Structures are given as C-alpha cells and as structure tokens.
C-alpha cells in the first residue's frame, strides 16, 4: 500500500536578490515528497535554507523556479487569495519567534486564525477552549501574552497553529528558546498530534529534536541543497 503524497516539491528554488552582487540561492533545486502523517525533520546549520524551504512548502512565499504541489495541485500559479485559503486550510505554523500578538489575551491569540473562516464567535470560543484545555492552558486563557512563561507561550503558539485543524504542522526551530524539559514536553505534544494523524515538518538543528524515535525522515540541508 503506498501512502498518500500530501506535499511535493519539484526542482524548487528560491533566490534572494537575483542578479545582484548579494544574490543568495537560499533553496537550490530541491525535490521532495512528503506523505500524510509523516514526521519530517529538516536539519542543517543556520543559513542553510531551512526557513526558506518551510515557507515555500507552506505557501508563504513563491519559488523563483520549480513547483510546489499541495495534494497534487500546483500552488505556485494560484492567485494570492487562493494561496491564503490553502495556507489556512492545510497548514498550522509554529514560528521560531512564536509571533504571538502581545496586546491581546491567550484565548484571543488562539482564536485569531479562525475569524476569517466566518465561523460564529461562540464556535470559535469553543474550539479555542478545547485546545487550551488539551494544552493545559485553560487557567491562563485571559492572561496577556507577556504574563506567560516561555513554555506557556510556546503552547499558546501550538494552540493557535491547531485551531483550524490543519493537516500539516510546520515548526521552525521550535525548541530554540526552550530548556531541555520544555523541549521534551514540546516533542511529546508533537508526538500526540502525529498519533492523531497530523503531518509534521520541523526545521531544527537541535539534536534533542532529530533524535526522537518517532521521526520518519530526516532531510539534511547545506547551502540550500539537500545532501
């Protein structure tokens, strides 16, 4: 039985500042296939193009060349509004810098991605509370982001990534700001999510992450290319 291919990149490249002296081939003709429920780690030193590759996979930026297929549909040529739709239906992002909005509460941050779907406010609230409960944040739901500890912030970011029930979770250096205990906690949350069938793509150079036994595949990058 062959697994369903969820994401495919074909000879995809991303060149910053093309034609200029400071031209950078951040991603250089990479082809990959990622199956549903895979746990993929993109490993490599800083500057090797992990973040850029994640953003291409997540339809956050368009490749200079090549194709990105999401469920066999070519995402590269789609207009912006369709891309936005793919982004929010398919992907949940956990950013390296978390990118939570400081001025509002934990619950509001988690609810944010669901507003544009046009759901009823009560339903959005319900979904947010379920997730906050699952991630042990219910007691902190009315806290402002700056009142949270590092681990709580991280879990808020996870909750926000999950609220639209995405098929794929993209995480960029998720353990960079966490100590060992919190990193392990984070990885166990990811494990649970994978058990529920979610596809995980994690960019990292943290051994604690890429040594996890449940990882199905490690992609090593250097200078924009896969080794």
């Amino acid at each position, binding site marked *: 039985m062959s697994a369903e291919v969820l994401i495919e990149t074909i000879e995809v490249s991303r060149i910053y500042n093309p034609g200029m002296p400071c031209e950078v081939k951040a991603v250089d003709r990479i082809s990959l296939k990622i199956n549903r429920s895979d746990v993929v780690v993109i490993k490599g030193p800083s500057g090797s193009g992990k973040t850029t590759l994640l953003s291409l996979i997540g339809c956050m930026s*368009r490749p200079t060349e090549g194709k990105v297929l999401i469920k066999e549909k070519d995402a590269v040529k789609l207009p912006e509004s369709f891309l936005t739709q793919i982004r929010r239906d398919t992907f949940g992002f956990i950013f390296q810098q978390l990118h939570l909005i400081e001025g509002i509460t934990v619950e509001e941050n988690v609810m944010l991605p669901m507003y544009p779907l046009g759901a009823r406010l009560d339903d959005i609230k319900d979904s947010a509370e379920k997730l906050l409960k699952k991630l042990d944040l219910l007691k902190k739901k009315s806290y402002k982001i700056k009142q949270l500890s590092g681990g709580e912030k991280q879990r808020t970011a996870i909750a926000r990534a999950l609220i639209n029930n995405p098929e794929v979770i993209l995480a960029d250096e998720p353990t960079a700001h966490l100590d060992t205990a919190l990193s392990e906690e984070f990885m166990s949350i990811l494990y649970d999510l994978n058990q529920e069938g979610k596809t995980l793509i994690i960019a990292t150079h943290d051994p604690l992450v890429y040594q996890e036994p449940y990882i199905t595949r490690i992609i090593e990058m250097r200078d924009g290319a896969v080794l």
Partner: protein
Amino acid sequence: MPEERGECAIGRGVAQTRYIRLGGELILTSSKGEHFLFRVTGLFTADSEILTNDLIVLKNQDVIEFFGMPENRATDLVVQVYNEREVPVIAYKITEMFPGTRPITRSEIIRTYETVFNWRSGMVLAMFAGALAAFFILAWDKATGLSAEERKEIGILKAIGWNTSDILTLKFWEGVVISLTSFLTGLILAYIHVFFLGAPLIVPAIKGWSVVFPDLRPFPQVNPNHIVVILVATVFPLCVKHFNPVVEGSGNRPRYGDEGLRLCRPITGE
C-alpha cells in the same frame, strides 16, 4: 440713574451680595466710619453685566460727602464734543492747559475694552491651538505609515491565514471605534464641563477677574452644525488615516524568516 441725593443705581452683583432689590436700601460705610443710606432707584440690566456688575452710581454731592472730598474737586470729568472730528484736538488742548490731566477719548475706551477681550480670547485660542496641534500631530503620525509593531501584526495575521480584505475590515472598524469613542468622550466631557460645572476653565477668561464676579452662566446651547463640523473634521480623517496605510502594508506578502516575520516588497514578479 439716581435723580436726587440719597438715591443710587447698582449693578446686579452688588444687589445680590447685599440682598437688595429695586426700591431697597443700600447702606455704605465711609472710611471715617460714618454710615450712609441710599435708596436703590436703578438696577443695571443683565445685558451690561460684564461691565456693570460691581458698579454703584451716586449723585455728585453724595460722592463728595461720602469720600470727604473738597467741594470743587473732581476725579473724572465728562466732556461732550458735538463734532466728533474735533475730539483729538480738544483732548490735546486740555493736556496743554492742564498738564496734570489725562484725557481719554471714547474711541480709546472702546479700543481698551477690545484689547482686554481680545487678550482673553487670545488665551483661550492659545490653549485651543495647543489641543488642535496635538490632534494633527497624532493624525499625521497615523498617516505617515505603520509602526513596526503594526507591520508585524499585519504580517502575523497574513501568515495565519488572514486575507488582505480581512485585515482591512478589522483596521477599518478599529479606526471607526477609536475615533468615535474619542469623539464621544470629548463631547461628553465638554458638555459636562460647560453645562454642569459652569465651564470653570473658560469662564474666568471670558468674564475677567472682577471683584464681584458677574454670575455668568454659559447659556446651554448645542449647535448641531458645530457637532457635524467637529465630527467631519476629526473622526473622518482619523478613520481614513487609520485605514489608509494598511492598504499599503497588507498588500505585501508575509515573509517568514530568521530574524522574525518581515514584510518585504515582492522581488520577482510576485
């Protein structure tokens, strides 16, 4: 005006502090300790209140007697001139003949009052101008683009799946709510200040610091035209200012990079 000795005309402030009505009696004590009684035959109307509130008018002889002045002494003389154009010449001649006197012409008096009131309204205007300047600085600040924080927020929203139109809707309502709230707050505060507290901040500037304050109550008047003008002049531009740079900012694609999430201009035909 008093017709006979023993009569007087008084301003409203005097009448109120002494609890006298028209036809009542005003008792004054001179510097020597003597008491003088005057019947009130005239009361200045409210129209001239700002000028006459603390005024008492007596017949000549009563004044002379009350202040214990010599019979033939006067402090002020009124000279009426039929030909208006003669006034400066006559004033000049008076100074020549009586070097110790100072003639004041009617036009000078009018000018003096005008300056006094101009000075006061100038003060109010100065304060008002300050507030106005603050407002425009704020509006300008909004108009000249997004702060780093706002850029970041828009970037985050885009990255988590918000469309440009979703963000515009949000920012538009944000603008409406902010400017309407501040408009209403300002309006209510101004209303309370003027109609319930009696405008303590501007009344002194308008009526001056007279010994007996005229009881000047600002006349409650809400002019719908003014409100519309203020609304259009403040709320509308603020809304637009709030909204406008967002159009610019959210047209950019989110970029998700090492230094955090940035918005950058499209590089290759995006």
